């Protein structure tokens, strides 16, 4: 009798943690999203879809969503292509391979808090190293974190710097699986460097690309630490992203109802995006050639 249920008993500890720390909070959050629960009401009061309706009418919400989309597009695609490009270059180089790998990977190891502090000083409009360098070249010196036109861009640049190494290593690993004979065949056909990699490499690292794509979409939604430390979403809401906006509503204004509604929307959007990516690209991925 017990034999039949043994596998489930092994799963039980993980299940307990999953329920306690994932499923239960998510459902509780969904529950709160249908209530008005803020500093004024002090106790949750049922209000149906009111939070969701207010959200749709909130221009700040749409700005935050827009910021998230821009942030996503300009971190995911540049990072992906640069990571693959660098991986190909490193794969082809014969000397100092480890040095190059470490050089590009080390930002990933640095804790985000430390990286944020360093970049904050670098971005300082009058004393920071970036503007000093631009000044030497007689280029315009933007306000970076203090200017609403460049605050999001500042975060994007820093994020690309931080995550590039991780994806590059993933691509390097993926490149090892491509049989050398295919490259030799391409050389015989007279393909130049670009055509070689476009027709051989790119399709054959597609499993890695799919993984990198999904992971970086999720990462772009999880941005919090650098926003909290570097701009606090400002100036205004120019660099505020969804997770930070949720934090503000929850812990700065203590509007738990609205924060929960925002969270539910975020989870739904993420779910939709991941399914979309799997659906559209999942079939085009070429697996195992061995």
């Amino acid at each position, binding site marked *: 009798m017990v034999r039949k249920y043994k596998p489930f008993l092994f799963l039980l500890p993980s299940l307990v943690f999953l329920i306690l720390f994932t499923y239960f909070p998510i459902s509780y959050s969904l529950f709160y999203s249908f209530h008005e629960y803020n*500093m*004024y009401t*002090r106790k949750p009061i049922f209000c149906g879809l009111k939070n969701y309706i207010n959200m749709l009418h909130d221009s700040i919400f749409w700005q935050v969503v827009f910021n998230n989309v821009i942030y996503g597009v300009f971190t995911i695609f540049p990072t992906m292509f640069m990571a693959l490009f660098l991986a190909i270059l490193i794969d082809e180089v014969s000397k100092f391979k480890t040095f190059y790998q470490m050089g590009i990977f080390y930002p990933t190891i640095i804790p985000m808090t430390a990286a944020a502090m360093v970049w904050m000083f670098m971005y*300082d*409009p*009058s*004393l920071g190293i970036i503007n000093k360098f631009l*000044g030497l070249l007689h280029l315009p*010196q933007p*306000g970076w*974190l*203090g*200017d*609403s036109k460049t605050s999001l861009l500042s975060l994007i640049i820093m994020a690309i710097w931080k995550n590039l190494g991780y994806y590059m290593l993933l691509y390097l690993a993926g490149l090892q699986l491509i049989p050398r004979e295919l490259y030799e065949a391409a050389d015989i056909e007279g393909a130049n460097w670009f055509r070689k990699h476009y027709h051989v490499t790119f399709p054959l690292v597609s499993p890695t690309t799919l993984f990198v794509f999904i992971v970086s979409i999720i990462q772009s939604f999880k941005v919090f630490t650098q926003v909290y430390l570097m701009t606090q979403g*400002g*100036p*205004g*809401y120019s660099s505020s992203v969804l997770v930070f906006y949720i934090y*503000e509503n929850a*812990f*700065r*204004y*203590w509007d738990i109802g609205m924060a929960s509604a925002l969270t539910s929307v975020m989870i739904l959007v993420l779910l939709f995006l991941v399914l979309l990516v799997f659906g559209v690209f999942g079939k085009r991925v070429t697996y195992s050639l061995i």
Partner: protein
Amino acid sequence: MRKFFILLSLLLVVLVIGKVINLKFFYPVGVAGPLARVIDKMVEEFNKTHPNIKVEPVYCGNYDQTMQKVQTAVLSGNPPDVAVIEISELYTLINMDAIIPLDEYIEKEGGEEFLKQYYEAFLGNSYAKGKIWAIPFQRSTIVFYWNKDLFRKHAKELEAVGLDPNRAPRTWYELVKYAQILTEREGDEVLVHGLILPGGWNDWIFEAFVYQNGSYLISRDAKKANYNSLEALEVLQLWHELTNVYKVNPPLRPWNTTPVDFAAGKAAMMYYSTGGLPLILKTANFEVGVSFLPMHVQYGTPVGGGNFFIFKNIPKEHQDAAWEFIKWMTSPYWAAYWSIQSGYVCVNKKGYEEEIMKEHLKKYPQYLVARDQLKFAYPKIMAPEFQRIRKIMVTNLDAVMLGQKTPKEAVETMQREIQAILDRYK
């Protein structure tokens, strides 16, 4: 044998802990400078001289971050015992039912006599609903910093228009003129700004200018918002001109790097908390002048800083111990020590008679400016949901500084949104 000793030491620990009252003390650092170390030292002294109380200081970031931590702690049922919180949050704390009134404790110490040792200007933000809720600790006013060396450098140009290079501007009109002359440019690029009106707490500085123009932003009872007054509009118009027309003020220097810029000689004049004094005096290699804020209709500045609050829903002996802690930290000697180390005004009048203070003032008379400005000081605006109100103010002020909104649009938006919040609590 070993087990026995472990059990014995555990028992001793339990017995000792049973006798010692542990207080969790949340505190912010609102200005640039290593003030957390000063707090640690003062708390260590208190713990040494009070063997039955052990205060555990918890640094919580700046004023906003500390308020967020306090809110989270209180609303999740795990409040600190005592905390220093920004003075404008009083109504929010009362609405959350987080703090206790201090009337009883003050009565026991002698009532009015006890309160007389603190400056009245600082007590203004302690009263609500007919009770007193807070004791001043790290209190400030905005003060006007000026680089005496840079003023002397431009003496000829200043005298040519009838301005004195040996004193700070006294009025808004003079402020604009001084700033224009003191700004050094190379082509289109500004090398030295005439003036910095920092971001981050520009809502506080906005309040100052509005007082100088003879008006107010939120009524004392937190019921009426007054942002769309002509006076407020004039202030914002002046700010817009300084930043976007005369270009003597950089748009939105961060609060924490503004004193660094000033001390490095990148700006000739600056509005900042008196709490920036120690850092500036230490790092500037020029003569630092400190004056009252320039007037318009009148001199004026809101007070600022953080007060001590004791929390509800903690054991009575913790509240009693917290009261002892507060009394000690604001006693003449320690209030004077804190003022010297931090640049904040010494909240205890007798502190200015302490030897360490007198010695210090001989070297750095600039420390007296904020205290002397108290006669022109007003209580800072307080309202429920102040975090939200502050965010609305900062967002709109920032938009004007960056040239994205006209002053008229900004004051209209602030008036509409802030009055809506205040109306909820009528």
